[in-house]
């Protein structure tokens, strides 16, 4: 199979200007997602996962500025589009599921109408048939009794139901790329499993490319084809999920795996990651932002980060990989 990248992010750097200095939030971030592929972005809070997604979607905070890079999507650079052209892509070709469905939905608009709005704005539906199409979408995300639920307000629905509504909105126009930013945080594990199955199934049906942002490595491994590990605004490793679990090559990925509770581990065997993220406002940030916490640091680590290909679709940015 020759893989066609649906989205290819190259050399993306983002800075935030704050009162206490310029924060280099992302630096030379590059990865791609193929059609029909699900890629996870994982890392601790502050690693730049969400900022990457926001930059691609063009919804960065006003203080954020893309200083370099391209995000090629079907031959066009999303980062170079005008707000007007980008708005045409969002909703139709690009879609996003946000972290907290209750706050992301409009609290004073019936959920059926919120789905209909997207269909009218981007899907070419008329106001007259949109409600029926919205009910079809509610059926696709398996909401029981869709005719009645379409009339509900978000506060009348459970968290899991609201997340299904978000998914229905995101998928209403069959986008080519879906970004799901921690779509199951705050949901119960049983609901999480059902929602993740649903996203996987709908993505599979339509050959959609999916970027899945999470801090849960096990979840990423179960539902994603590839995992991209981020640390302090750098991509440190990218590998197929099972490969990453079996043979992590970057010291940070290995530490992250060793800290994750699993079925067979005892509490004493779990190891924390020493140190914290470096202050990204520092003007003299080291080339490898993990080097301050790293046990395998060499003198070489002061040089610009390498990109070693160490296996089939397995890349690591480290001078002294495991």
């Amino acid at each position: 199979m020759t893989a066609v990248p649906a989205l290819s992010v190259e050399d993306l750097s983002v800075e935030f200007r704050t009162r206490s200095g310029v924060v280099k939030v992302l630096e030379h971030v590059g990865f791609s997602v193929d059609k029909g592929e699900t890629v996870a972005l994982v890392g601790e809070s502050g690693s730049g996962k969400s900022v990457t997604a926001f930059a691609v979607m063009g919804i960065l905070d006003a203080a954020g500025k893309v200083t370099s890079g391209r995000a090629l999507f079907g031959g066009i650079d999303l980062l170079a589009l005008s707000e007007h052209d980008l708005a045409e892509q969002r909703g139709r070709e690009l879609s996003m599921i946000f972290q907290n469905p209750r706050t992301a939905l409009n609290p004073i608009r019936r959920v059926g109408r919120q789905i209909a709005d997207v269909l009218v704005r981007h899907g070419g539906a008329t106001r007259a048939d949109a409600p029926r199409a919205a009910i079809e979408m509610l059926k696709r995300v398996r909401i029981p009794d869709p005719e009645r639920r379409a009339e509900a307000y978000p506060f009348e629905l459970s968290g899991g139901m609201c997340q299904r509504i978000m998914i229905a909105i995101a998928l209403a126009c069959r986008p080519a790329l879906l970004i799901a930013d921690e779509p199951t945080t705050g949901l119960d594990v049983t609901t999480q499993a059902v929602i993740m199955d649903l996203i996987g199934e709908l993505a599979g049906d339509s050959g959609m490319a999916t970027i899945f942002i999470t801090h849960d490595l096990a979840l990423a491994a179960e539902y994603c084809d590839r995992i991209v590990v981020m640390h302090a605004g750098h991509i440190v490793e990218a590998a197929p999920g099972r490969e990453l679990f079996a043979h992590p090559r970057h010291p940070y990925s290995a530490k992250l795996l060793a800290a994750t509770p699993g079925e067979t581990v005892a509490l004493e065997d779990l190891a924390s990651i020493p140190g914290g993220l470096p202050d990204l406002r520092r003007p003299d940030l080291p080339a490898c932002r993990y080097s301050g916490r790293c046990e395998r640091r060499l003198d070489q680590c002061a040089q610009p980060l390498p990109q070693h290909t160490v296996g089939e679709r397995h890349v690591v940015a480290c001078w002294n990989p495991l």
Partner: protein
Amino acid sequence: MTEALLDVAELAKRFTIGAKDGLLKRATSFRKPVAPLPQLHAVDEVSFTIGRGETVGLVGESGCGKSTLVRLINRLLDPTSGSIRLGGVELADFKARNFAANPYRARIQMVFQDAGDSLNPRYTAADAIADPVRRLKKMSGAELAARVGELADMTGLPRELLSRFPHQLSGGQKARVGIARAIAVEPELLILDEPTAALDVSVQVVILQLLQQLKRELGMSYLFVSHDLNVVRLLCDRVLVMYLGKVVEQGPAAEVFADPKHPYTRALISAIPQAEPEQRAGRLRLSGEPRSPIDPDPTVCRFYGRCPKGTPRCAEEMPLLRPAGAARQVACHFA
């Protein structure tokens, strides 16, 4: 067998819902029979014990009554019926309103879910830790300062951070302040409500290990509420599974995880993400939404309708919690 530290028996909490009639309505309708208002059965006849030095996990989905149960035991809410005995003393008779000044207040303490939200933003770390001691123990200023320093050492909080406010502390440091505050008055029972839910995995490990170590050193018992089953498995001796106000299964954590007997427990364990595809075979997924907890039919199993096993019998006869093996109990006709 040694006596249990906490003995909860047939504990129930029902909330009356719907608006109460106003004065005019009451004044004009005094002859009409009063229709009972609907009741939400948040916690329904729950019984369990926690031994000294034991860690009991409480799991279940949101809305199953975990938080209400915790608030009842912690005496922040008054139960509708039932008993809560701590070391042989009946706590259910004390009113929640006055419990803050009760000497037993010091014996049950709680670590709240989000350390950031549960700390007073205008209190320094030292103030937050000293506050319960000041209220519940008689101590001079110098003693108090020494005690706060000692607690900071015990929880691994650098002493130089004691003068900081919550917004100047990291997530892990705030979690340590929350724990130091809870153990400051030497409780026998510590209730931990998702203590690591807001933390990154690397910090979560440190906090879990700290909790384990403190339990050993101070001989406390833990009631550990979580929906992260991998964390429950790491820390708990025994586990209680709640579904819609009822305990549906309980037993030693290792046994329950290896061989869940209630269909709901099985679905919970099936929902744990697995990196290895081989381990995903035979998983159980729940469909539908939970039944309403408002005036539930006492003859129908609470899980009926969502349960893959449901039979007509489940709709006619509520399964009771009954022994299944040496230390286990299950409430299912088919377990």
